[in-house]
């Protein structure tokens, strides 16, 4: 299991890095403006960056896909997530979402997806059990818990993508 270090970089963003098995420190910097920077450290000077690659948000999503990650399995490391039938995920939230600036209640997350929002991480501070009046902001990370499919639906809902509900779901009737 990879042990990820998280370091805030004031004025820049957040740095996540880990010591790679093949002898280099590898990390990602999430800039405040949405850019992602992928870097590896030098072998002779482990504190220094040898190469860095700056990606737009979109490009980094593509790279993440190529590397075999998906939004739902991104951080499956904690034992909490291993409970049978229960999934938990950290969903990034940005201004492209249709719910940007809206109160949390309007997403109707639990009704529509079966997943619950248990916390919001804003500016690095977790806000546990946010109320329905809390407005979603770009840069928030939304922590959701539900079934694996429910969490996937939650990610789609927040992105404004259509979601397929289970056959027997009451909202199915309403949508038609």
């Amino acid at each position: 299991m990879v042990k990820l270090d998280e370091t805030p970089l004031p004025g820049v963003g957040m740095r996540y890095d880990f010591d790679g098995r093949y002898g280099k420190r590898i990390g990602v910097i999430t800039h405040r403006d949405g850019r992602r920077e992928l870097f590896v450290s030098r072998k002779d000077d482990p504190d220094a960056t040898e190469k860095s690659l700056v990606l737009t948000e979109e490009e980094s999503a593509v790279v993440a896909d190529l590397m075999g990650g998906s939004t739902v399995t991104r951080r499956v490391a904690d034992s909490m997530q291993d409970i049978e039938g229960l999934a938990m995920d950290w969903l990034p939230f940005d201004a492209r979402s249709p719910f940007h600036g809206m109160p949390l209640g309007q997403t109707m997350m639990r009704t529509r997806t079966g997943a619950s929002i248990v916390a919001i991480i804003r500016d690095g501070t977790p806000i546990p059990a946010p109320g329905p009046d809390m407005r979603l902001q770009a840069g928030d990370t939304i922590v959701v818990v539900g079934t694996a499919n429910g969490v996937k639906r939650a990610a789609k809902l927040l992105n404004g993508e259509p979601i397929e509900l289970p056959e027997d779901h009451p909202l199915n009737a309403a949508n038609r």
Partner: protein
Amino acid sequence: MPLGQLFLELGTVILVLALVGRLAGRIGITPIPLYLLAGIVVQVVMHLGEAPEHFIHTGGEIGAVLLLFTLGLEYTSDELRSNLKANSRIGVLDFALNFTPGLLAGLLLGFPALGAVLLGGVTYLTSSGIASKILADLGRLGNRETPTILAVCVLEDVVMAVYLPVVAALLLGGTLLAVGLNLFVALAAFGAAFFLAMRYGHVLSRVMNVGSNEALLLGVLGLVLVVAGVADLLKVSAAIGAFLVGIALSGEVAERARHQIEPLRDLFAAVFFVLFGLQLELDRVPDVLVPALLLALVTSLTKFWVGWQGAARAGVQTRGRFRAGTTLIPRGEFSILIAGLGLTTVPTLGPLAAVYVLVTAIIGPVLARFDGQLAPLLERKKPQPAQGG
């Protein structure tokens, strides 16, 4: 003066700045010291008409206001609080080692006490603009010493938040009672702005946070200038008023306002540096040359030591410590700003600060890129970063 001539002269000055900026980028230093030099050259070579001179004056003042406004915007986030906790020791070391030389030098040079305090501010403040530019340009954001460098800059901003209103109040002078009253007003205004920002910042932020970028830009800029104007009329520094507005705005609106205001700030800040160069009393430069160089030497060493210690605490090796030390050496925008505040009180402060900033802003970035060659030399001399620093 015909409008054509105003545009011509102003355009020439700004184009020169653009060329200077490109040159600075080419040789890998920041343009701030070169903008200063440009101001000096304009003063010596080219005689500006009254209208461009007037524009540069106003523009420079706006630049100072926007510089402090954006500093205030950085302020109310949680990063600062966690930083304060985690790095307070290195912050104290930084203040003690870098404020004191300026203060002592001021007293030795026979400045009034307030002038010495201003010089202390000049030598204390690392240019976070130059530091972050070095970090970004040399691809060092991922380095292990980088959080330390940024933390020192952030802590200095925090100290500035208290220092600036106090100094601005002291600058008004007058009787002991008047000074006390000014000081009280300044601290009360700062405290109130801070309290309101914490408590009701979201209300102001929501009111200001309109969807349209254009309306946001105009709203924020208008508010900043109005508050700065009121502050100036109340004989509190205009820049401090802007700073307080920056503190009061938080969250999303601060983020958006920063994006919107930054290009404007860059333009007017450049004009501000030109203005500073333009106003320098050049005949005083020879008198301050030796003290400025000595001060630059001493405070480069003390700043280097702070970076070295901070990086060592973060478990960074010699080369990284060297980079942290050298990245912190340059002084820039806020040193000039502080010197600018005190120009009327201590006329020699301007030339002294200008030479000082020129020297540190050049040696810092130059040293910062030779870590591979220079750091090993220190390793032999100092196998253990000495005790008791």
